[in-house]
């Protein structure tokens, strides 16, 4: 049997899930969604301010670490090794979690994971849960699934709470309410938070205090918590959550039952590997030397913390990504969000334009690797093009994911999938073929180039002049076209130097 399969053979009844489901696809292609976001001046201002602040913080603390490049290399190498032997590491993790009194569940896709969590919550007889901020549960749409079954999920991370109370969607993987300014937050709290002081101001400290009072009550009441995990150590069965507000620590210690949903790529081989990631992650994500709270637990400890622990291992397209040589590197991501914060596209459009819970540069590659490029009308097919290939993401990624190369690869996979599905080539594909045909032959190329100059054919300024594909109107909407030269370089060369040896 092939060994690339992320899920160990036979752990899940039935065939491996081929495609991810859940909150990974928007309703429109990127350019259309981006157009709306670009028209929102408040959003543009909030994003520009937030991303430039966090960029500067990150650059400062990364600059302090003399062996930063060596750490990145180490992070990348550990991840590559992990992906190469994922099935074995997952079984080791399962064995160690079980040995320490936890229960491991395997979920092929979002629907299966939601069903498992729902059944576990129902078995406790509770009708509410507290949640630690988690991308995996966002990805599977767990809150909506629980709500549908009459169970209330309370988000306890401040930004996640803002998003939840605002009936909104997260737009950043670390700072989900990055698109909101503080006056908007005040307005959301005043409207939605039960029992809030009507004299609430938009001072950050006042807003935080209001959230704290609201959440404290929930923490003391809740019997069940749901979390994600930043790392799952195969060697020891230890799960780790990294956070800044202490809400995670509350959720992980106070309730009687803890349910953790973790993507299968989050496993690391040994406890010692955390040394590398716990240096890389906080500096890359919040721009802190160390994050305020790092919680680690293994199974169940009698008389201390939750007495029942469940780990749900989620595939949801990861096996599919792992099968692709380049795609598997997208699974190296530790969700630090540094690539979002430096991305010039994300900075202008924000996260909602990407449709998926994973926005920004990593989202533009991870999402299509999880859901698959269709070559049809799937909005995710537009994501690999949502980049100018400037390379800023690759420069900052703590595990050195070469996102520009992945984007270029996905673009090729997209045009190839499209060609395989459709009888007629797109006008773009036809133009590219024509351009390649012209450029494959110097004589043809010289003729076309000459035709573009004003010297020979009197083409006026303002006309597109290269054998470029449509739609060129996208160019002329905001930029003038350079006026064509009197002669091409090669004609000038032939005229002035042609008879040189």
């Amino acid at each position, binding site marked *: 049997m092939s060994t690339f399969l992320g899920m160990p053979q036979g752990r899940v009844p039935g065939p491996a899930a081929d495609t991810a489901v859940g909150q990974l696809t928007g309703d429109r292609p990127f*350019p259309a969604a*981006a157009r709306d976001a*670009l028209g929102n001046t408040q959003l*543009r201002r909030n994003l520009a301010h937030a991303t430039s602040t966090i960029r500067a913080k990150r650059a400062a603390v990364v600059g302090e670490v003399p062996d930063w490049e060596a750490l990145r290399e180490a992070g990348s190498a550990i991840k590559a090794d992990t992906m190469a032997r994922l099935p074995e590491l997952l079984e080791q993790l399962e064995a160690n979690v079980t040995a320490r009194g936890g229960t491991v569940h395997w979920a092929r896709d979002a629907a299966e994971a939601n069903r498992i969590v729902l059944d576990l919550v129902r078995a406790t007889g509770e009708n509410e849960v507290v949640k630690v901020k988690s991308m995996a549960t966002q990805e599977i749409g767990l809150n909506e699934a629980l709500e549908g079954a009459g169970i209330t999920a309370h988000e306890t991370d401040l930004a996640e709470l803002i998003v939840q109370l605002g009936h909104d969607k997260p737009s950043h993987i670390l700072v989900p309410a990055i698109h909101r300014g503080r006056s908007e937050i005040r307005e959301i709290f005043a409207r939605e938070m039960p029992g809030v002081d009507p004299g609430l101001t938009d001072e950050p400290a006042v807003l935080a205090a209001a959230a704290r009072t609201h959440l404290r009550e929930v923490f003391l009441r809740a019997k069940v918590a749901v979390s994600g995990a930043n790392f799952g150590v195969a060697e020891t069965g230890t799960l780790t959550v990294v956070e800044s507000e202490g809400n995670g620590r509350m959720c992980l210690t106070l309730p009687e039952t803890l349910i953790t949903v973790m993507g299968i790529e989050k496993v690391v081989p040994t406890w010692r590997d955390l040394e590398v990631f716990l240096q890389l992650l906080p500096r890359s994500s919040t721009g802190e030397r160390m994050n305020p709270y790092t919680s680690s637990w293994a199974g169940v400890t009698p008389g201390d913390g939750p007495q029942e622990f469940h780990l749900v291992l989620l595939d949801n397209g990861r096996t599919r990504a792992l099968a692709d040589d380049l795609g598997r590197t997208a699974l190296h991501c530790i969700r630090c969000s540094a690539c979002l914060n430096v991305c*010039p*596209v994300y900075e*202008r459009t924000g996260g909602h334009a990407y449709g998926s819970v994973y926005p920004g540069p990593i989202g533009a590659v991870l999402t299509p690797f999880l859901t698959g490029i269709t070559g049809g009308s799937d909005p995710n097919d537009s994501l*690999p*093009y*949502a*980049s*100018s*290939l*400037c*390379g*800023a993401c*690759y*420069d900052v990624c703590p595990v050195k994911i070469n996102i520009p190369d992945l984007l*270029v690869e996905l*673009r*090729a996979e997209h*045009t*190839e999938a499209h060609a395989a599905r459709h009888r007629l080539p797109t006008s*773009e*594909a036809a133009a*590219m*073929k024509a*351009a*390649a045909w012209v*450029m*494959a*032959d*110097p004589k043809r*190329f010289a003729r076309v*180039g000459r035709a*573009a*100059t004003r010297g020979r054919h009197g083409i006026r300024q303002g006309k597109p*002049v*290269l054998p*470029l*594909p449509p*739609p*060129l*109107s*996208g*160019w002329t*909407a*905001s*930029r*003038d*076209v*350079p006026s064509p*030269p009197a002669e*091409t*370089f*090669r004609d*000038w*060369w*032939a005229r002035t*130097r042609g008879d040189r040896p």
Partner: protein
Amino acid sequence: MRIALFVTCLGDVLFPDVARATVAVLERLGHDVVFPEAQTCCGQMHTNTGYQHDAVGLVRHHVDVFEQAMARGCEAVVAPSGSCVGSVRHQHAAVARRSGDEALAVRAEAVAARTFELSELLVDVLGVTDVGAAYPHRVTYHPTCHSLRLLGVGDRPLQLLRAVRGIDLVELPAADSCCGFGGTFSVKNADTSTAMLADKMSAVLATDAEVVTAGDASCLMHIGGGLSRLRTGVRPVHLAEILASTA
């Protein structure tokens, strides 16, 4: 040194002045510039737009042409474009490998190893920063993404510019942020590209420069196209043209 000029398709057809300036600088420094007339295009647009399959023939052609130039005594290939050199150095072998042609990949790597962007050639290979230019204008420099990140040219272009007589070189705010060109990105995601361009233009205007310069004609076409549309009066001038100037 005998140097082969890789003019780039854009340089040949739309910006011959940039290519002529490149020739002028190198000849002034006493080098022998050769133009292999069979060259066409490196295939970057095809590769970056998803047509790697169509790019393979262009890669092969490029490798054939410049291999021959090297066989005829050229010790280096130069292009006045960070982006096209980036494509040659970073993508050609990968495109060949993806098509299953390992032999071509190896040949492409050999050509790439001798291919330089203009500022790299001048500073690293030829060891000069003062090329004898004079340019009495207020100038700001935009480091294009592929020069900066794919090639890592660092401050080489600035070293060259600082040595130009009479120049008033002013620093561009947020210089390392992308101008929004990105090849076909500029038309496929025209709105986002324009938003990025708007911020770049504001930065340029804040410097009060008469001239914005860069090592890529393509990014300058984008920035200059926007500045011209707004009738700002700021001119885009390629690095090679400033270095060639003796005015």
